[in-house]
């Protein structure tokens, strides 16, 4: 059964970040009260005219750049005609024939193998209103109507669920970092449809479309289940019909929604209410110059300054900490220690108090002084834990806080040495254990040193000195 070759293409809708909607000046905001982020254009009133939002074009250009697409210089919009209550104009304004971006790719890596997933086009279109189905009625909220979207369509170059998941993860990471979208699948700002077909020959099989899959994990699962289903149908002499399906994550299978009739009959024609759009070099360059560093560029940069791959991954997954850290690079300090602090004590504080780092009193100068003090042994990790609330909440320098908290760290080597000698004398059994190769004994002895000094020595320094003494 497994000699079928699957061919998969994904269509991803991403809501664009902007203040106002695509064709009207009502707010593009999530979570507003029902039908309040709306005007007569969004409601499709006769006689109203759409006007194109400049920022959406800029954002779409950024998406083209990030996804390595060719940019279309002269384009128009098209009407896609259909009757459905989610669109009161009875047509959606989209880009059918002149998408803003074409011929791009995203590079993914699965099990150590790199692969380029082709992007056939990126087009701009308006979102529909949100409908909630309740028994025999549907309830419509037009807040989402006219929200700007880009639809990113891949070539049929994906071979399995794992590749689809890697592609979506990368796409999400890039669009999020480029500030194009917040890409929250759970809030619907990123939505994915998967086209799947299987065949034993070079001729592609009949494809099905599984719509609106709710998470990246479920996209992978839905694809694998759909491949299995199609194999079963073909192996038992059945045929695959062109149809729309949905993924039921409780049942773990795709379910038939509707069989497509004689193909879609959307009767596309050029949107006559929007003049065509011709982009100048100046406009394009101006739009692209605000693109921030993207994850692949960040990974390279961080690896060059000595961060571990785990630190890099954690930092990139924590956008506010990452953005803050980028600012820290203007200062000279030990970045590895700084990242450790950012991802441990500082992150814990921020999570506990539900704050972002820019809302605290932790200036770069203050963080640098903490990192430097840790490096010199003037401050221990325990001190940082004791001080963290004050460091974040109060506009005082580290020196001022140390005075207030009466932190006088022991940097005097001879004093530390005396303590170590005392610990070695009082714990001869553990010393013997250590010498016979029991590493755990070292931890115990270090604990005793820290206890004797009430945590007031730099653990690394004390540990180095302890090992030196033990090995004498």
């Amino acid at each position, binding site marked *: 059964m497994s000699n079928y070759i699957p061919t998969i293409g994904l269509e991803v809708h991403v809501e664009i970040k*902007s*203040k*106002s909607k695509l064709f009207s*000046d*009502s*707010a593009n905001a999530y979570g507003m*009260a*029902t*039908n*309040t*982020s*709306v*005007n*007569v254009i969004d*409601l499709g009133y006769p006689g109203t005219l759409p*006007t*194109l*939002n*400049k*920022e*959406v*074009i800029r954002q779409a250009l950024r998406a083209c750049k990030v996804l390595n697409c060719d940019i279309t210089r*002269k384009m*128009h919009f098209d009407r896609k*005609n259909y*009757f*459905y*209550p989610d669109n009161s104009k009875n047509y959606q304004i989209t880009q059918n024939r002149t998408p803003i971006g074409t011929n791009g790719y995203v590079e993914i890596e699965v099990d150590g193998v790199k692969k380029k997933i082709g992007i056939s086009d990126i087009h701009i279109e308006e979102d529909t209103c949100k*409908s*909630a*189905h*309740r*028994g*025999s*009625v*549907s*309830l*419509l*909220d*037009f807040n989402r109507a006219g929200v700007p979207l880009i639809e990113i369509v891949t070539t049929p170059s994906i071979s399995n669920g794992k590749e689809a998941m890697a592609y979506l993860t990368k796409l999400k990471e890039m669009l999020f970092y480029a500030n194009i979208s917040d890409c929250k699948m759970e809030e619907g700002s990123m939505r994915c449809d998967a086209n799947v077909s299987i065949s034993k020959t070079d001729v592609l099989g009949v494809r099905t479309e599984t719509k609106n899959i709710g998470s990246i994990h479920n996209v992978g699962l839905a694809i694998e289940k759909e491949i299995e289903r199609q194999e079963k149908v073909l192996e038992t002499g059945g045929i695959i019909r062109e149809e729309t399906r949905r993924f039921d994550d409780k049942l773990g299978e795709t379910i038939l*929604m*509707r069989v497509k009739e004689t193909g879609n*009959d959307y*009767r596309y024609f*050029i949107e*006559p209410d929007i*003049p*065509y*759009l*011709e*982009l100048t070099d100046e406009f394009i360059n101006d739009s692209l110059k605000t693109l921030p560093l993207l994850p692949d560029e960040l990974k390279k940069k961080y690896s060059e300054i000595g961060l571990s791959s785990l630190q890099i991954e954690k930092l990139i997954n924590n956008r506010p900490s990452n953005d803050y850290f980028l600012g820290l690079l203007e200062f000279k300090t030990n970045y590895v220690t700084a990242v450790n602090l950012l991802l441990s004590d500082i992150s814990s504080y921020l999570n506990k108090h539900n704050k972002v780092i820019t809302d605290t009193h932790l200036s770069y100068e203050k963080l640098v002084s903490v990192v430097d003090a840790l490096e010199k042994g003037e401050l221990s990790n325990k001190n940082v834990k004791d001080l963290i609330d004050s460091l974040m909440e109060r506009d005082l320098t580290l020196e001022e806080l140390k005075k207030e908290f009466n932190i006088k760290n022991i940097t005097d080597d001879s004093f530390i040495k005396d303590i170590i000698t005392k610990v070695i004398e009082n714990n001869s059994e553990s010393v013997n254990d250590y010498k016979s190769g029991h590493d755990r004994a070292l931890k115990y002895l270090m604990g005793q040193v820290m206890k004797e000094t009430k945590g007031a020595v730099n653990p690394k320094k004390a540990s180095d000195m302890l090992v030196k003494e033990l090995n004498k």
Partner: protein
Amino acid sequence: MDRLSREEVLHVAYLARISLTGEEIEKFRVQLKVLMDDIDKIKSVKDYDDEMMYTPIEDNTRLREDVVGKMLSAKDATINAPKKNGSFIEVPVMINE
């Protein structure tokens, strides 16, 4: 042929979600054919699509600044809806179409 087929008229009626009587179908078979012929004439204009000749204006690019303007209240937004449910507009369910 001076008229569309019955199936063609029914297809157009389906797309518009309207039902037609037998008499209406016969009437539209002739009327829609006249319309189609006129559209074909327009389509035969050379370069109609290629040069984006759908607008008579030169320097077409018109973009709006990204600024939020005045919006409607939920009451005004739903004022012309045949049926309401709280602040929502209510319509017959169309989930399994």
